[in-house]
């Protein structure tokens, strides 16, 4: 029995493949619609859902009742299975819990404890989804791994490289989280939603009556069941016997004057105003976090603005490493409006970014991603 589906706003796709394609299915509407789209294009689809984290592991975070609408909650696995059943293609759950913890969760916690503000999704993409899952997809005979990311991949005929591009729907664009992918990873991947808006995706999902068509979007980190990072870090550190430094420490001004106390540096992120817990003439913001001295340095907003930063672990995606400084738009966090800057590639995988105008809260642990128009040239970690 096959389900017959008709789309009338089906995006045109240049390539026509007929081999097996694997779809990374989270149980959400985006990746489910990817499966429906590909099937409609005549592809033979196999669904793969990653089991990444045991939601029952830190029970103190669960609160009352079962975890819902989170990655790896059983509900999401059932949703993915229900979609596969509805569209009649094989679906499997693959267990990457061990790897996910080693490559994503543990570094996330360590970074927070070191006073940085990490992006777990970038690590997950580069080290789990487009590494282990992509390999699994190829091992089971799939030509490509398709995901529900809002971004585009284009082959540049002149350079022979795969370029990563922003999604057509800028409000949903996820290219910021994909800057760590290699050419090999890009050539094995497919982002069928890159040309669509979220509204179009929902409309498609409704049209083919996907059981998840009305499912709300999840905005939280998948392994933090309630969105409370601080609570998660405390619970995880306790379970793993990771020392939370000395816990309490000092809040100091730029000149080193002690003006308050805090309960652990993992409670803070650069630029944060809320939760400083004391009054002052002007609003104060977190300027920097010194995890060694267990200190949080605060100051006024204008001090937060900086023109220059050096990034490390740079990955060049859409071009080779440029030999000379060049201009680009740089995004320093997911919701940051890209700002014009000069980028100077340096040795040992680093680069110096000099913005035309000072940028607020350039935060260690986040990434600086370089754009030329819609094209992601590359990116690097803010140390």
């Amino acid at each position, binding site marked *: 029995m096959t389900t017959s589906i008709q789309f009338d706003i089906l995006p045109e796709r240049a390539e026509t493949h007929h081999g097996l394609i694997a779809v990374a299915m989270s149980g959400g509407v985006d990746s489910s619609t990817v499966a429906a789209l590909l099937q409609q294009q005549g592809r033979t689809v196999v669904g793969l859902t990653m*089991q990444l984290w045991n939601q029952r592991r830190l029970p103190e975070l669960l609160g009352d009742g079962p975890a819902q609408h989170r990655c790896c909650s*059983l509900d999401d696995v059932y949703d993915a299975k229900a979609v596969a059943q509805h569209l009649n293609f*094989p679906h499997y*759950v*693959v267990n990457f819990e061990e790897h996910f913890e080693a490559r994503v969760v543990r570094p996330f916690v360590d970074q927070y404890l070191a006073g940085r503000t990490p992006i777990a999704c970038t690590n997950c993409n580069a080290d789990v989804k487009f590494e282990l899952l992509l390999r*699994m997809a190829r*091992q*089971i*005979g799939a030509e490509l791994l398709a995901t529900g990311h809002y971004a585009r991949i284009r082959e540049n005929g002149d350079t022979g490289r795969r370029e990563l591009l922003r999604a057509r729907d800028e409000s949903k664009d996820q290219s910021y989280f994909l800057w760590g992918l290699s050419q090999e990873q890009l050539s094995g991947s497919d982002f069928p939603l890159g040309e669509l808006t979220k509204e179009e995706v929902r409309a498609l999902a409704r049209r083919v009556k996907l059981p998840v068509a009305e499912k709300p979007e999840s905005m939280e980190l998948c392994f933090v069941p309630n969105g409370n990072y601080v609570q998660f870090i405390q619970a995880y550190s306790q379970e793993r016997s990771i020392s939370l430094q000395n816990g309490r420490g000092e809040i100091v001004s730029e000149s080193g004057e002690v003006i308050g106390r805090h309960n652990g540096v993992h409670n803070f992120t650069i630029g944060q105003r809320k939760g400083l817990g004391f009054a002052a003439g002007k609003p104060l913001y977190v300027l920097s976090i010194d995890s060694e001295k267990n200190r949080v340095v605060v100051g006024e907003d204008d001090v937060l603005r900086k023109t220059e930063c050096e990034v490390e672990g740079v990955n060049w995606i859409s071009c080779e490493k440029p030999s000379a400084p060049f201009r680009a738009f740089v995004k320093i966090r997911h919701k940051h409006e890209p700002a014009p800057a000069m980028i100077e590639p340096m040795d040992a995988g680093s680069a110096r970014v000099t913005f035309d105008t000072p940028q607020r809260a350039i935060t260690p642990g986040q990434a600086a991603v370089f754009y030329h128009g819609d094209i992601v040239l590359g990116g690097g970690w803010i140390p």
Partner: protein
Amino acid sequence: MNRVYLDFNATTPVEPEVLDAMLPYFSAEFGNAASIHTFGQKSRAAVETAREKVAALIGARPQEIVFTSGGTESDNHAIFGIVAQPLLPTLSEAEGSSPKGAVRSRQIGRHIITSVIEHEAVLNACQALEKEGIRVTYLRTDREGQIELEELHRAIRPETILITIMHANNELGSVQPLEEIGRIAAEADVYFHTDAVQSAGKIPINVDALGVDLLSISGHKLYAPKGIGALYIRGGTRLRQLLYGGHHQRGFRPGTENVAAIVGLGKAAEIARKSLAEDARRVSTFRDNLQQGLLQRVPQSRVNGAAAPRTPNTTNLVFPGVEGEALLIALDLKGLACSTGAACSSGAVQPSHVLTAIGLPPEEARASLRFSLGRHTTSADIDFALNVVPAAVAQLRELSPTYRKMAEAR
């Protein structure tokens, strides 16, 4: 697509003869076996006939058989039933046989002996009891998946009340020396339970020869439907009931009898008893052919637990350098169903506690696959497996960084 099923340790199809025997009991003969009228009497007769057939399969008396919802309930009933104080009338008290002295005299400080390779139904029941203060010894096994009798001897303490050791292991097929364990249990005056879910219908079972007091059976592993099982309880065994309700099955396991399923289990037991020897001969030949063929065709492959006595239908092979999970999916997409480890609630593969228990490093445990054959497995099925498995392993190894590293190291 041509699909070949080599996962009979997970479940078996209902035998057509079994289904035929069951069908009248859904609508035509629908009486409650506890009812007094003729409708009820017909169902009662069917249930008791089935009880005789199940008893015959394991050399027991019919009144020593209690029908349950399956292997898990039987295991739980045996373990919790022995540990709990026998405050209420027991199955066998009417018969006047005296319970083992052990239970009455030991009010406090109870101790259970089991093994690390048991099914979760036993392991998790024991772990639950540990939380309630019962002490549990988990016997290790050798590399072939068999417990050491010496270690069992040493584990017995004055407060030991139960030894629960499985008959055949689901993943390896390895068979434990139950006669010896039975003798040790009898000498120590300790109750002895065995989970025979994977052995019933595959190898001969005689409860007296094995010296077991309690024995669990599951219907769907021997061509009866899912949701039916049986627990053998030796006459004289003091076992506390787990469920309270009506007087069904002498009040010992209340709940209206699932007549059709019980009839199915009875029929399946009858067929198994008659065809066991012939099945074992045929199936073990196919199993050996599969095992030999794979060893020849897949470089560096090995058999896990090959030196122990095994059920005739099971072989477990390690293919170094592959992810068993990927191999399992690749094979399923080609039409071959087999198994690796155990599935968790989401359906993801978990590392096998059995394979790590017999000393396999985690990467080899993850690279292992179980093939379990059935009564209707054909030589064409084996040929199919011998065709697709080596090709799939080669394809996976080509894309495996682990295998590349291994190859370079050589």
